[in-house]
């Protein structure tokens, strides 16, 4: 009995009688399962916080930017002079609304469609790395997986439009389907260009290859990746159905398109999914082209030296690594927010395209352009290698920059320098 109550530290606890009793009755798997569940819960709630916190900010930003562009003030009342809490107030209002299902709607599909869109959008956040060591699921084929997951959101939109039992919603859904099926092609080809340059589908490898100065970012790797970034950004804007490609919810023609019949909570989670997808595609653009979690000014190489310091407080936890990860995540989210700002800016500046113009833009312009960029990006290192006998203009070739995984970046660099000194 004494051993039971005196167990204070974890080691004491594991050696104590109660732990022995637990292992005898429930097996050591029980302890592992509990630890696993706690870890999974923490991961999921952190991601869910990001997933629902960012849209709250973006919706406020959208209103403020729209107001400024149209020579208005935007929200000013709720939460002080800037209307900070406007989105929260709207959210509370939306939850209180009645959950309507139209008489003609297909009840099951109508109720399930918003969840399908939201799950697809949230699942993309699982494989999105926020910093060198911060990713919920470190899949080696992360880039492939995130493209697959982001393409599923449209399924929820189409099901919602069809099951509403309204011609406006059906038209919106059919337009969205036509648009998505065609825009996926140039988007995938443009994303393939940096993946081909990096020779990896792993976001961590791709991010680490762009460490150091601004010139190491893939957008400045060669002229074709520079163009490919803009091509990707246009198709990404179309894939999250933002203006000028927002034909699925064209207010002037289709009332509200696919979400005409929705109200309250289901309506609001469609928008949660849309605004988080805006962040997801922007973050993918940042990782693939704009240096990921590196600031490009060498500040992070100083902060990376902190990695591994300040450990010993908790097993496996290092204060320095934590600080470096926070810094990297702040840079990545900041860059992605700038791209989201550009999407908002474009929405309130450009007029909407017609559906035939949207299809022409994709099939006649973006697909050939992206194919051309891909072929030229393949040929570029070969041309450089034959004419200048080196595959890149400045710096080391990318193949020499890939660091081994599982080792902190600074430690790997230090080991490399030691090798070089020897």
């Amino acid at each position, binding site marked *: 009995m004494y051993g039971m109550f005196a167990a204070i530290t974890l080691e004491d606890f594991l050696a104590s009688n109660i732990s022995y009793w637990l292992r005898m009755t429930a097996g050591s798997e029980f302890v592992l399962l509990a630890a696993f569940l706690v870890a999974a819960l923490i991961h999921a709630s952190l991601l869910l916080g990001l997933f629902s916190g960012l849209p709250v900010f973006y919706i406020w930003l959208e209103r403020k930017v729209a107001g400024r562009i149209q020579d208005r003030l935007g929200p000013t009342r709720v939460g002080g002079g800037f209307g900070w809490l406007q989105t929260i107030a709207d959210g509370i209002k939306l939850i209180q609304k009645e959950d309507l299902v139209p008489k003609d709607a297909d009840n099951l599909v109508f109720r399930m469609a918003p969840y399908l869109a939201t799950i697809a959008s949230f699942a993309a956040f699982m494989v999105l790395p926020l910093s060198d060591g911060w990713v919920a699921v470190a899949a080696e084929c992360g880039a492939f*997986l995130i493209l697959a997951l982001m393409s599923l959101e449209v399924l929820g939109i189409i099901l919602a439009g069809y099951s509403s039992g309204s011609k406006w919603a059906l038209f919106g859904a059919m337009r969205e389907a036509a648009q998505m099926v065609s825009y996926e092609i140039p988007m995938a080809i443009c994303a393939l260009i940096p993946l081909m340059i990096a020779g990896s589908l792993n976001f961590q490898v791709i991010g680490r290859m762009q460490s150091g100065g601004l010139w190491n970012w893939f957008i400045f790797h060669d002229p074709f990746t520079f163009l490919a970034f803009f091509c990707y950004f246009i198709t990404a804007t179309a894939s999250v159905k933002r203006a000028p490609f927002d034909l699925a919810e064209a207010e002037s023609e289709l009332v509200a398109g696919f979400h005409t019949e929705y109200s309250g909570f289901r309506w609001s989670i469609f928008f949660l999914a849309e605004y988080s997808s805006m962040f997801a595609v922007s973050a993918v653009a940042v990782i693939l082209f704009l240096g990921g979690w590196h600031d490009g000014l060498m500040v992070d190489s100083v902060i990376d030296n902190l990695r591994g310091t300040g450990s010993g407080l908790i097993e496996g936890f290092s204060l320095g690594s934590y600080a470096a990860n926070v810094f990297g995540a702040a840079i990545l989210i900041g860059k992605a927010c700038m791209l989201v700002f550009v999407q908002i800016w474009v929405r309130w500046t450009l007029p909407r395209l017609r559906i035939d113009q949207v299809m022409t833009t994709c099939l006649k312009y973006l697909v050939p352009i992206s194919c051309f960029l891909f072929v030229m990006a393949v040929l570029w290192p070969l041309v450089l290698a034959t004419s200048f006998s080196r595959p890149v203009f400045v710096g080391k070739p990318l193949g020499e920059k890939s660091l081994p995984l599982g080792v902190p970046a600074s430690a790997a660099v230090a080991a490399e320098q030691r090798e070089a000194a020897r």
Partner: protein
Amino acid sequence: MIEQLLFWVFAILACGGAVAVVATHNVVRMAFWLVVSLGSVAALFFLLHADFLGAAQLLIYVGGTVVLLVFGVMLTASGPYNAIPTSPAEGIIGGAVGFLLLFVLVSSIGSVDWTEVSGRLPAVPAAPYLVDMNLAAKADESFVNTGSSRAKAEFAATQQQGRTVRQLGLGFLGLRPDRHLTEGDGKGSASGYFLPFEIVSVHLLVVLIGAAYLARAKRRVVPEGSMNVG
């Protein structure tokens, strides 16, 4: 334990979704249940640490359902929510064929001696942290080990963590780092899948061009003589 639990959840979802696809009469509901079923199969692939296969399943099958759905709506729906009725005879025949297939699958799975097959798999340690420890130990005494067993251990470790992309790519080109060239039955070097892949992709391109040609907007041909009349 948790993997077993997740396996059962996704296996039930996959089978239940598949049954629901057959049982419903509405095209769009069928598509919804198909998404549930195929998505659960993708989740089962992730549980088996076949990340690439799972992602491909999501992209090709679940994403491809969209196209199927759109065609289903465009080609079959004359009014909203048209049901596709099935007669009882069709139900009986379909059910009989389905149960026969199930019987064939179950009996063939039962007749295979799995102990022999599992002996041929690379030895996979139980948990990722064990893999790391084993790898570290292997790296320390790498001068003792031959290259082959080291490569095999690394292969097992990466496979355990779902890191199969590089091996898949190399295997696609005909390089199998997990097998030793002189070892075993001489199947060390495979021929790769590059040529079949190219043939299939050119085939698809031909089909695409043919479909575009057939579906193009027909231009009205003005007869030769009619120009002179006006």
